[in-house]
């Protein structure tokens, strides 16, 4: 792979939008997509007429209950009469959307891209959207075992705790921190002022995963406008540049993965850092938003991203390094 830090058409984010995240939104998926898209357009000072291409991100079609969900969402996402492309990489889809928007612009194919991610989980399945996860397994070898999604995470969490000697109360700190951070976020669904004890006393779902270790069912949408450098400079004084992108998928067979260390996140991070010219992420990166569907996953992913050494993330968290008020060294 050739590495040039400066691609010809340097992409920047010039507008963003976010809906409320709630257990059950009354808007249709199309409407959620449009609320976020409109905010992003307004912030960028553009209208749909100015948008060359649309990128849509949404995870399993079964959540929204629509086959070919990208086609269905196209009008809500502003894609009518436009080149509209949907991308999908499981739970990482949300970040794949700006990545795809990046290559739409960096290639010179589009000057302005409206990138929209949407998910409406609440409409899926009875009694609980969790049931969708009965269909994510290998139809021959795994489905007959009737596994549940939380099982995998429970095993991974267990393995991480065992390999790194981490206690449940150390992991619970992540949940306490993130739910408290969310108190100041207008769109957050489960902001709360809780203690480690609350987490440890919450309902056990699949040991060691408890109710407050895990993110809930949520409906919502987010959107960006990504533009090439000339458009970005014209529209805003504060463009946010996309310096590097990276992504990777590990094996489908979770039994063959390293459960204690997220190899996939490491490969993806290395790719993005190389592209951005980052050699020491701990020193050069100021702030990180990492995927934390389970509290231990934040620790896992910090290590994968090279923001902590292996097994070091719980210690950094305990020391308060990842608190919002502390400067990361």
């Amino acid at each position: 792979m050739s590495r040039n830090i400066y691609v010809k058409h340097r992409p920047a984010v010039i507008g963003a939008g976010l809906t409320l995240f709630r257990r059950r939104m009354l808007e249709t998926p199309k409407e959620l997509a449009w609320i976020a898209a409109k905010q992003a357009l307004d912030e960028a000072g553009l209208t749909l007429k100015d948008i060359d291409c649309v990128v849509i991100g949404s995870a399993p079609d079964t959540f929204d209950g629509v086959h070919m969900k990208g086609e269905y969402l196209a009008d809500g996402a502003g894609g009518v009469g436009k080149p509209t492309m949907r991308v999908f990489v499981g739970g990482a889809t949300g970040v794949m959307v700006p990545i795809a928007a990046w290559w739409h612009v960096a290639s010179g194919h589009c000057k302005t891209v409206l990138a929209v991610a949407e998910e409406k989980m609440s409409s899926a399945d009875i009694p609980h959207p969790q049931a969708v996860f009965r269909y994510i397994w290998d139809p021959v070898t795994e489905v007959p075992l009737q596994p549940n999604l939380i099982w995998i995470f429970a095993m991974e969490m267990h393995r991480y705790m065992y390999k790194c000697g981490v206690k449940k109360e150390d992991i619970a700190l992540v949940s306490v921190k993130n739910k408290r951070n969310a108190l100041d976020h207008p769109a957050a669904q489960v902001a709360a002022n809780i203690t480690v004890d609350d987490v440890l006393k919450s309902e056990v779902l699949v040991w060691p995963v408890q109710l407050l270790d895990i993110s809930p069912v949520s409906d919502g949408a987010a959107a960006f406008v990504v533009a090439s450098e000339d458009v970005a400079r014209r529209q805003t004084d504060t463009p946010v540049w996309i310096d590097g992108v990276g992504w990777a998928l590990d094996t489908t067979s979770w039994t063959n993965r390293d459960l204690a260390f997220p190899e996939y996140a490491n490969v993806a991070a290395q790719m993005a850092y190389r592209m951005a010219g980052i050699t020491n992420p701990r020193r050069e990166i100021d702030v990180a938003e990492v995927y934390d569907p389970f509290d231990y996953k934040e620790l896992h992913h910090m290590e994968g991203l090279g923001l902590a050494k292996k097994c070091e993330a719980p210690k950094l968290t305990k020391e308060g390094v990842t608190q919002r008020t502390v400067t990361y060294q």
Partner: protein
Amino acid sequence: MSRRVAIIGVGWYGFRPVVEEASFREMMFEAAARAYEDAGGINPRTDVDAFASCQEDFWEGIAIADEFAPEPIGGTLKPVFTTPGDGLQCVANAYMMIKTGQFDVVTVESHAKPSDIINMHDVMLFAMDPITVRAINTPNYHALAAMEAQAYMNRYNVPREALAYVVVKDKRNALYNERASYGANLTIDEVLNAPYAVSPLTKLDIAPFADAAVVVVLASEDVARRYTDTPVWVDGIHWITEDPSLEFHNWEFPVHTMKAAEAAYKMAGIQDPIKELHFAEVDNRYSFKELQFIEALKLASPGEAHKLLLEGAFDRDGLFPVNPSGGALGEGVPLEVHGLARLVDAVLQLRGEAGRIQLSRAEKAVVHSWRGVPTTTSAVAVISR
């Protein structure tokens, strides 16, 4: 630095009504192994920078089906992603990725096993708007295409004979195509007298399904030269979604295809497609669609395609061959593989490796795909040798 993008390898497996001997993952593996061999024996673990898979959850019967993409194509722990769309849209992604200068070799994959789907009708209902259209509970989803056919035929006075001619031509072309399971020697009367599936379409006007997997390897110009002496260049590629609302899209004419074609032709510097191109592989999952798409691709004026067709212009030995492979009417519809199937046929023609369906003049071609009802999404690529 404007680097050209080349197709350096293609591999396929299946193209049969039922592939019994292999799972979808094994089909992907077979197609990938052949594509990598065709691309000069490259090693996906070391030589491929990224992988794009085109598939849809409901077709797979798996939620989050994208997670099943990496292994069979050599992509584990490498940049792999899925576009739930036609395979040609994955080619567009790969094209853009290579154009960024950050990727040299990108693999595109699509696979389909419609023979595993026992409730196709219900799956198609789920493709319709849950509030406004699904509740109509269309007894046969082909009815949506039939209404488009009726609107098109009324608007441009297209006789049913023209539709039948498309079926006869394509199924006859398919007799010479090693990938085609649905080749047949029919007469116009046999098509016209076949019972209607949904008026004005008979069963023979509707392409049946097929199980298939296709893998295509794309590379930047300098890298392509290293691996192959017969690169096929992607001169232009574009895709358009017209309108997901059935109520609002144009029923008489596929505007999506026309807009995608205009953009792809502009990229490729094509002014007069019928003169500058040598043949076309277009979607024909319904017979009338081939006529519509010929017009939308500007190979005939709107409403004129049926006249040229009946004069033999689009025959294999005609002025401008369309679907010399037989297209979907001959090979079947392998769901999202469809666009890649059209691409493979065109690539082999350009390389002079099309065997018994080889055209005498094949240097530049247009390839088109449509995602079928109820979508209004088309992708168009111009490729040359």
